[in-house]
């Protein structure tokens, strides 16, 4: 086994938690990881964007352990001393050239900008694995909805692309509580590299070739979390959450199958596994957003109050459009869509969320 140099790209909590986790692994298993690099793209890049509905929802990435490279674009501090003390090395974009594996965790609307900035420094022998729970919405620049993996292939020379999903939230990584990730990639090598650098101790890492399935399962989790937040504030109890998770997974699976994913991926760690974690109280930003929406807080106010990146609203819109396009029944997505657009009051939205006229579970 050759030890690998890994780089984490992103300034959010998950990115930082992942970098610390990798550092911990490097100390334990120095033959697996040669160095841990951290690149935080310029703040303005993460914040702005023509179609970024979260522009005013910053300050994002506040609750961050400031130990790891707080200031972006500082300098390539590759001093031998630091390497010996095994620290996360803060790097600039051009230093990404030296990484074997690059983990990408930036907000979806910033992905294309970050990739363009990094592309000249990337090579065909590198691996890129992203953990972004969203797709890139259609915009003026790019007229079609695009998966993050497609954006990586379109904008950078990297071919070995993977995606993470699974029940491993930032606090799990920070506290070393048991968690799991699935790495989806068309290339077996990518999953092997993810296992090499991440598995062991508290984290289980699995691999699958169903890249699109893992990617869409991950993107679907923000939708399920949003719905669970609404259910939570209305105190509907555990069965309602279970219904949202399983029927949500079935709904996402039907939709994703139209795009070439394997349905079974949605009933494994990447789907149901992640949804269980994402619908928990301490879970994602989208869960919090759902709770606020359930209390009839208008969307823009709710986004401001959450103060973190919420992929839910954009994903609900995308899934709604996709369902229409491929003629897939999406009851949870449609209910959320109408809720977000103020067409439902909370109560009828919920009834619609948890009611169905289809009683065959396989449909």
């Amino acid at each position: 086994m050759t030890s690998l140099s890994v780089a984490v790209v992103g300034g959010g909590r998950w990115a930082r938690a992942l970098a610390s986790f990798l550092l911990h692994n490097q100390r334990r298993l120095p033959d697996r990881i040669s160095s841990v690099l951290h690149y935080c793209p310029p703040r303005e890049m993460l914040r702005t964007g023509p179609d970024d509905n979260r522009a005013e929802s910053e300050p994002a990435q506040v609750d961050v352990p400031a130990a790891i490279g707080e200031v972006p674009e500082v300098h390539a501090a590759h001093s031998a001393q630091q390497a010996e003390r095994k620290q996360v090395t803060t790097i600039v974009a051009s230093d990404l050239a030296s990484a074997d594996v690059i983990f990408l965790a930036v907000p979806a609307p910033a992905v294309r900008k970050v990739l363009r900035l990094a592309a000249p420094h990337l090579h065909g022998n590198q691996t890129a694995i992203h953990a972004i729970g969203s797709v890139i919405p259609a915009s003026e620049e790019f007229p079609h909805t695009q998966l993050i993996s497609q954006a990586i292939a379109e904008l950078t020379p990297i071919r070995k692309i993977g995606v993470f999903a699974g029940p491993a939230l930032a606090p799990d990584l920070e506290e070393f509580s048991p968690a799991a990730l699935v790495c989806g990639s068309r290339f077996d090598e990518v999953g092997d590299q993810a296992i090499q650098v991440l598995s062991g101790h508290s984290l289980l890492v699995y691999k699958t070739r169903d890249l699109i399935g893992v990617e869409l399962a991950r993107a679907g989790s923000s939708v399920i979390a949003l719905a669970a937040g609404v259910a939570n504030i209305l105190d509907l109890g555990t069965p309602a959450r279970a219904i949202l998770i399983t029927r949500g997974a079935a709904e996402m699976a039907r939709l994703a199958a139209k795009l070439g994913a394997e349905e079974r991926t949605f009933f494994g760690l990447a789907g149901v596994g992640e949804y269980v974690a994402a619908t928990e109280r301490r879970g994602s930003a989208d869960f919090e957003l759902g709770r606020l929406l359930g209390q009839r807080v208008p969307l823009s106010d709710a986004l401001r109050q959450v103060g973190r990146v919420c992929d839910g609203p954009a994903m609900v819109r995308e899934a709604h459009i996709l369902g229409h396009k491929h003629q897939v029944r999406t009851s949870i997505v449609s209910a959320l869509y109408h809720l977000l657009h103020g067409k439902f009051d909370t109560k009828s939205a919920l009834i619609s969320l948890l009611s169905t006229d289809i009683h065959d579970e396989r449909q």
Partner: protein
Amino acid sequence: MSENEPVSDYPLLRFHKERERIVLETTRRALQTVLSQNQPEYILNDACLSEIRRLSEGHAQEEVRALSEWKRLWRSLGGKSRRMLEQDLERLIADYAQDVAGGFQKHVYTFASRVVAPALSLLLSPENPLKLPFHMLQEEALLSRLGERLQVTGPLAKLRALAARGTLVCVPTHLSNLDSPVMGYALQAAGLPPTTYGAGKNLFTNPILGFFMRNCGAYRVDRRIRHELYKDVLKTYSQVILERGYHSMFFPGGTRSRSGRVEGKLKLGLLGTALTATVEGFRRQAGLANGAAVRPIFVVPVTINQQLVLEAETLIADHLKETGKARFIIEDDESAQWQKVVDFARSMLTHTGAIVVRFSEPMDVLGHPVTDTGESIGPHGQVVDLARFFWVAQKPTHVAQRDTEYMNQTGTAIARAYRRDTVLLPTHLLAHVLWRKVTAALPGLDLYRRLRQPLDLHVSDADLCMEMSRLQQQLRNKRHVLGPVADGTPEQVIEAALGAFASYHTEPVALRTPSQAVTVVDRQLLYYYQNRVESLGDEP
């Protein structure tokens, strides 16, 4: 050498000297490959059983081993030592390698390319050759006539420069058995070197095509043999000749398109050898493997666009058969009938732009576009180092799963190039417009009923012109390529298409009626020709 000169020094010229060495190297390496994957008795057992089954069912024709020999070999497997089994295996591989290796004789190639083409156009010209003025009989004049009928387009100067620097792998679309001779002509007209290519062994027994192919660099692929060992020998042979710099050609569709659609799903087995040879070259460069340097390999998608297709009637009939009854290999089609070929050639030669061969932008084995000097360009518009894509711990390495996936991606890039560079001709456009009318006249039916249901459809000239103009505009908006005449006025397109339809097929596909309207005669062929247009919308 200037970019504008044709390539005159090409590797096929030395093939007859290298042939035995190539066969030996193929045998050695194929043996090594198969033995690294399996035990010799399993490999031989599999080959024997597969061949015994095939030869017991069908008639034998130019077989490497007779049925009785296979049976004898199979019965003897049990009692043999590993050493003896390996010797048996080596003999079998060597026989296959000999069978696959074709021949190339320069004087035959010269004869075929320089004499046959003008002779064809002379014999088949509508005028009586004896009445033509003398200067028209000269070779250039005749070739230029053929050149009008059969146009060759694309980035030809760039391809010539790359052919001098590296090895070309042409991957054309496949509609007809005439495609390989057409490609032979197109390469010559483009000033590109001739390529070697795998041609179905059955084609060698075709009296017409066999003559052209036997000595023009084709190697023989026996598609009837289904077992893995034979496929491994074929792949090794292809890899060996690519490593030695022989320009090659594959039809990645695998077989002629039955439906007339542009290929979307490609068979990447032989094309994969271009990738393996590339990795092998990087390994040799890095001192990780022995052998002579491998020149860079460039993949060149080509669309062969035909106004009419020689075997259209047989192919579409086969396509429309019930699932399971369709044939993988068709030997008794129009291309085996002299009269049909002559009729076809005569029809083709009377229509300007009847065949357009369009070369696409060349790419590397991973589907990246390349610069004029052959460097790969990444999606971000900058030069990338191709070798790095094959690194494992900084060393170029063969990794089967990775390379299979890479090949899928290259396959997608080729299928996209086909859609971008398909040249639409008048028959395709008229067929599409009329097919839309048929669909509108028979709504809600499945394809089979739509083809069989009685229908008396007359489309007035005015209506047809309007629809044609609309279709042309739609295709231009989507940046599809309209070929000669097809880019003209709607009236010109319709006249040209009706003329072509009336000139060759048993029944004209569509006819003009006395009442200034057009009616459809053969709906099946109409569907076949319109499929060319419709398949451009598929997302590969």
